[in-house]
């Protein structure tokens, strides 16, 4: 470990230091994980702490995150059942439950015994499948250098999950991961690594919740990988309580002929700063990225996306829709990045925003960074209020103003909600949106 004198900017979060690293990783973990954590910690130390004067953090002041109020949670250990069963579980082959008490992995359909699907904690995976972990942890899905908070997550993850689908295996019902944290004052750092091998198929659903009154910090990192001609569908529903802070750093990579569909749904939390990066890495890789965010009360949501086309003949289609209400504030920034020589790229990026009252604010910054010609690239953003003629139409059929408003907000989001793979989650999101629109006749 280097012993450079840290400037305040290069400093990290209080408590995330060598002592913690030794405690959270330490001798109890397989050497592979210790090495990976140490490498990430070195990167974390090198990277400057984001400042409000950084372009990326201009609209989301890092000071919005009260880092000094959180103590790192311990690394989670397996328990027989971390969370009570949920009706949602029945729709999946494997259910992973994560709480402050620990984690549990439930093999509902016996698929884990077949060897075609691996769902293990990172610690167990590192012992049983070291080569796979070596390849995918801090690995294949990440195309660009780590950033401050992805390095933080890599070094200090408190729960690591490893999913691997063997070549040509179609996992029929997929994996559900449910996170429920309630211990106030804790920082939780979940890390997910999921690799779908060539010609395999997998659906992952994630759900995050915390009580409204518990102040929590979550730093989540995901590395998703779709091999050649593989299909990966993922949806994450973030329904944190109103005092949870969340930073997310995600990557997904699609190889030749692979298809990735990823929907992120941001509904809860106090301040969320999320980065979704996607690399369509080889010819004919396709990515469909969709997102919904809705900031009401004094919620703040900052959603960034990167569509990286590192090969010619690649396709990406992004649709993120946001609404702001009350004093809510949202920031969307998207980048399409086509590598030099990436011809015949087809990239689409759209961000639609609905501003529901004065005092709410939405910023949208779509963008392109293109080093190639002979490609089809389009991006756009819209900002608007509810459509008056649609309002009148609904009201002329007897719907009271507030109900008409709710229906139109739900209608606005429906295009994204439709892309969520599971009906239970679609219904849940519709309910959330309806609730956030407010009561009133």
């Amino acid at each position: 470990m280097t012993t450079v004198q840290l400037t305040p900017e290069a400093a990290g979060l209080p408590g995330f230091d060598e002592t913690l690293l030794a405690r959270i990783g330490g001798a109890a973990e397989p050497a592979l994980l210790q090495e990976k954590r140490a490498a990430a910690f070195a990167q974390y130390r090198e990277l400057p702490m984001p400042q409000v004067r950084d372009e990326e953090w201009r609209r989301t002041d890092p000071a919005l995150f009260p880092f000094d109020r959180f103590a790192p949670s311990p690394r989670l250990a397996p328990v027989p059942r971390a969370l009570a069963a949920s009706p949602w579980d029945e729709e999946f082959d494997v259910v992973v439950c994560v709480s402050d008490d620990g984690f549990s992995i439930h093999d509902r359909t016996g698929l884990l015994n077949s060897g075609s699907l691996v769902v293990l904690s990172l610690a167990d995976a590192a012992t049983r499948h070291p080569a796979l972990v070596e390849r995918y942890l801090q690995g294949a899905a990440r195309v660009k250098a780590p950033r401050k908070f992805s390095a933080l997550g890599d070094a200090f993850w408190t729960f690591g999950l490893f999913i691997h689908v063997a070549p040509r295996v179609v996992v029929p019902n997929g994996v559900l991961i449910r996170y429920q944290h309630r211990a106030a004052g804790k920082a939780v750092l979940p890390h997910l690594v999921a690799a779908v091998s060539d010609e395999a198929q997998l659906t992952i659903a994630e759900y995050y919740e915390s009580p409204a009154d518990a102040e929590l910090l979550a730093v989540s990192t995901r590395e998703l990988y779709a091999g050649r001609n593989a299909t990966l569908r993922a949806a994450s529903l973030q329904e944190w309580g109103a005092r949870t802070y969340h930073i997310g750093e995600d990557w997904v990579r699609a190889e030749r002929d692979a298809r990735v569909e990823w929907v992120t749904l941001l509904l809860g939390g106090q301040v969320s700063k999320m980065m979704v990066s996607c690399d369509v890495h080889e010819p004919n890789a396709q990515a469909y990225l969709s997102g919904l965010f809705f900031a009401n009360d004094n919620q703040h949501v900052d959603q960034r996306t990167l569509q990286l086309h590192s090969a010619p003949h690649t396709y990406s289609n992004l649709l993120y829709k946001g609404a702001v209400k009350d004093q809510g504030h949202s920031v969307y920034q998207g980048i399409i990045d086509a590598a030099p020589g990436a011809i015949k790229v087809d990239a689409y990026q759209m961000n639609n925003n609905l501003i529901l009252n004065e005092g709410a604010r939405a910023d949208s910054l779509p963008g392109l960074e293109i080093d190639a010609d002979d490609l089809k690239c389009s991006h756009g953003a819209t900002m608007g209020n509810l459509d008056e003629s649609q309002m009148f139409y609904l009201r002329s059929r007897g719907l009271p103003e507030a109900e008409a408003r709710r229906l139109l907000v739900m209608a606005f989001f429906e295009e994204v909600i439709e892309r969520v793979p599971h009906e239970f989650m679609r219904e849940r999101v519709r309910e959330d949106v309806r609730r956030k629109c407010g009561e009133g006749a």
Partner: protein
Amino acid sequence: MSEQLPFFEIRNLHAKVEDKPILKGVNLVINPGETHALMGPNGSGKSTLSNVIMGHPSYEVTGGEILFQGRNIIEMEPDERARAGIFLAFQYPVAIPGISVAKFLKSAADARFGQGAIKASEFIKEMRENLKFLEMNEAFLNRFLNDGFSGGEKKRMEILQMLTLKPSLAVMDETDSGLDIDALRIVSKGVNRMVGPNFGLLVITHYERILTHIKPDHMHVLIDGQIAMSGGPELVKEVEKNGYDWIRARFGKEVLV
């Protein structure tokens, strides 16, 4: 209903849009069981009248009254008017992507008749029956409201809503425009299902054609924001044959001289 309380009466109605006066003293009485036709040149204010009856916020009523079942409805919100039993079939129904026809109809019916007043199973049965009656495919229920609908499909959707909401007073704003013979027959069939002793209807049109399917008891001509002439169904033929100029000329003399 007592003689003193008119079912539907417009008294000396004045309205403007963006500071431009459009309606300049409209008077009209519709009794239960009556069908009235309203014709008039483009821009005479027919759609404005429909919108004002429904309470569109862009139109400002500057004078007069609209009485419905004995109550002046000018101050009522559009949704209150709808729940009270007034329906407007729009000339240009808007599309609402993201709301399915089924969800929309259920929400509207819940608003009009009260949440839970109709059992879901009953409601679906009725929907199917109405769709069949209007010769519409059941797949419509899952489509987004008016989204990508043809002109004729939109107009049938308006009538489907009318059948669902069972208003006691309906205004049809050029529902017939642009419909082919078949669609016109179907739309008329739907409307005639509503016609009865407790239903008042105002059919706004440019063409005699629809009035051979939906028989009016009275006919009015709107010119420059006023009812320039009223008469029986025979007036329809005269307008169809001779246009509006003779009415304008005669009305101009009566009013201006």
